[in-house]
């Protein structure tokens, strides 16, 4: 008798599609993954849909419409494990920049037919709506971490994704610190690793794609940035990026909003 393959589903909310594309970007692993699981719902890749329940649901994107706020509950009910992938699903994404604006400020922007559009005031992460089993960070996620998550869930273990800062990985790579050596402002000390400490290796400061690391000291980093001559407005903008609504970054950006 054939062993039933675990059913994998991929769901999309408000997002750029990049994180689910990471699965298709696993060019060397894709066919092996497809052998190990039944791809039961993945509209970006297939028109075939298999009914739930699902063993593992990957959820991309944030909640921004009343309809999506309902839809996520159905997905949770149909899923044994639910993993969010990417900054939109785990922190609200770049579209959470709307969360900082006064309603009337947005309304003052000219638009053709607002009555056609349905949207919520805030862009919120999945965990604000349903229980999430695991959150995979990144804008975009790292495809090797995605394969690690799939492999961990298939084997009933916890995914191994380190929570420490980008700094540690710069040291491991042997990248000279851009902030100390060149005076380039860098969010590396407060940002979780996952990208492979890319930006400093390309001679630029980290801009926070993977969101806050565990216990980040954002206030201290801001003081260092001030000493490098960074203005309060620029500090506010730096923390207000793809993970703007993640609590430590949100608080720090608000501290510099005058």
């Amino acid at each position: 008798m054939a062993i039933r393959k675990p059913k994998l589903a991929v769901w999309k909310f408000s997002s750029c599609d990049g994180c689910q594309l990471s699965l298709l970007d696993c060019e060397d692993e894709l066919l092996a993954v497809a052998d190990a699981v039944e791809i039961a719902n993945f509209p970006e890749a297939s028109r075939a849909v298999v009914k739930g329940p699902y063993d593992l649901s990957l959820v991309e994107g944030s909640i921004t419409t009343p309809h999506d706020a309902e839809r996520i509950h159905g997905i949770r009910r149909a899923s044994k494990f639910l993993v969010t992938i990417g900054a939109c699903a785990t922190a609200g994404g770049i579209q959470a920049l709307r969360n900082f604006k006064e309603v009337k400020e947005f309304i003052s922007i000219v638009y053709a037919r607002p009555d056609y559009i349905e949207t919520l005031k805030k862009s919120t992460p999945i965990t604000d709506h349903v229980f999430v089993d695991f959150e995979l960070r990144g804008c975009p996620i790292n495809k090797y971490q995605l394969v690690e998550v799939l492999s961990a869930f298939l084997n009933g273990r916890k995914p191994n994704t380190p929570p420490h800062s980008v700094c540690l990985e710069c040291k491991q790579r042997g990248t000279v610190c851009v902030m100390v050596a060149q005076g380039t402002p860098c969010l590396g000390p407060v940002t979780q690793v996952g990208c492979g400490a890319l930006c400093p290796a390309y001679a630029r400061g980290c801009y926070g794609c993977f969101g806050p690391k565990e216990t980040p000291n954002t206030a201290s980093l801001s003081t260092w940035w001030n000493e490098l001559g960074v203005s309060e407005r620029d500090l506010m903008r730096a923390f207000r990026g793809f993970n703007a609504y993640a609590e430590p970054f949100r608080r720090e950006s608000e501290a510099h909003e005058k």
Partner: protein
Amino acid sequence: MKSRTIKVDYLARVEGEGALSVKIKGQQVTDVKLRIFEPPRFFEAFLRGRKFNEAPDITARICGICPIAYQMSACHAIEDACGVKITGPIRDLRRLIYCGEWIESHALHIYLLHAPDFLGYEDAIRMAKDHPVEVKRGLRLKKAGNEIVRLLGGREIHPINVRVGGFYKVPDKKEFSPLGEELKWARDAALETVHWVATFAFPEFDRDYEFVALRHPDEYPFNEGRIVSNKEMDIAVREYDQNFVEDHVSHSNALQSRIKERNSYFVGPQARYNLNFDKLSPMAQEAARSAGLGPVCRNPFQSIIVRSVEMLYACDEALRIIDQYEMPNTPAVSVEPRVSTGYGCTEAPRGICYHRYRLDDRGIILDAKIVPPTSQNLKTIEGDLWQFVQAHLVIQKDKLQWQCEQAVRNYDPCISCATHFLKLHIEAE
């Protein structure tokens, strides 16, 4: 009279969330709606107040499939505002990274999203059981394109190395050598792709399209050129807004573009090809001819052949650029903000991507406008469906529905792209 409806509640193998409904009354198509329910993300609204040098990183997030297109259009528009023109090796590297994006995006669409329609599979993974050689070739081609983006951009999705003025760091020549070897394989594989897709069966289809693409005097267009059409449009990028308008229709969270004086238009590989066949490399032209294409191809179902020819061209062009590359003295030129408005338009894999930014003296963005390729094709896709369904009413419903989906996928629509620029309407929670 008997009515029927063809409905696809969630279009598959496209990027983003859309649905399709076609209403038929008796022997007449009475309504076609490509409904876009992808939630709006309001990029144009939150770009206001951001720094000019943040635009490439922010707008990349409009699309995970073609972030380079947004980064390139943003950089060119901002450099235009600041009176800077990029030349020499930095310009070549931009062209090279764009080749990488075309290769990965075209390979994704040809092999994983579109070919299954022609061969009758729900998806490429099922197709791989019967056609393992082709699917593996497609994945390796996609990887080759991604390798270019990764080498120059740092990573495949939302690359980190592109900046206003150039790059943060540029490779030296020897870093390209493993890539060059892989691209030689990719060029051969792209040629095999052209021959493979040419064997597919294509429904007869033609309409009176207006094709719109960039045209450059010396090269097949990526980053620069004038906006031209087969109906005598020939304008500078900065004249875009005088010539195109966007309509907001009730069934769509994406605006639909049209040409002011006329109507719908067609952007993307087929438009580029039809307006720039003479600028393709000899190898790409020869491949097109051997696949039975003339210098103009009007049947959108054959877009898969045109996309394959462009993928071949992009491999050929990437090899040319790598071969003659000399490392520049500096990875970027300095760009100082000034009070101005800048315009940029580049050829995303799916067609022209237009950006406009108004800056103040400190480089703060006061106003932004972004028109992605897919919103420019929406009206044309709906038009195709009207005509296609009308001509194929006798086909069995399931098959007709699948062919309608295929007709939409002819355009490789990126619905996530198409919905970000809508302005915001707040509804209380």
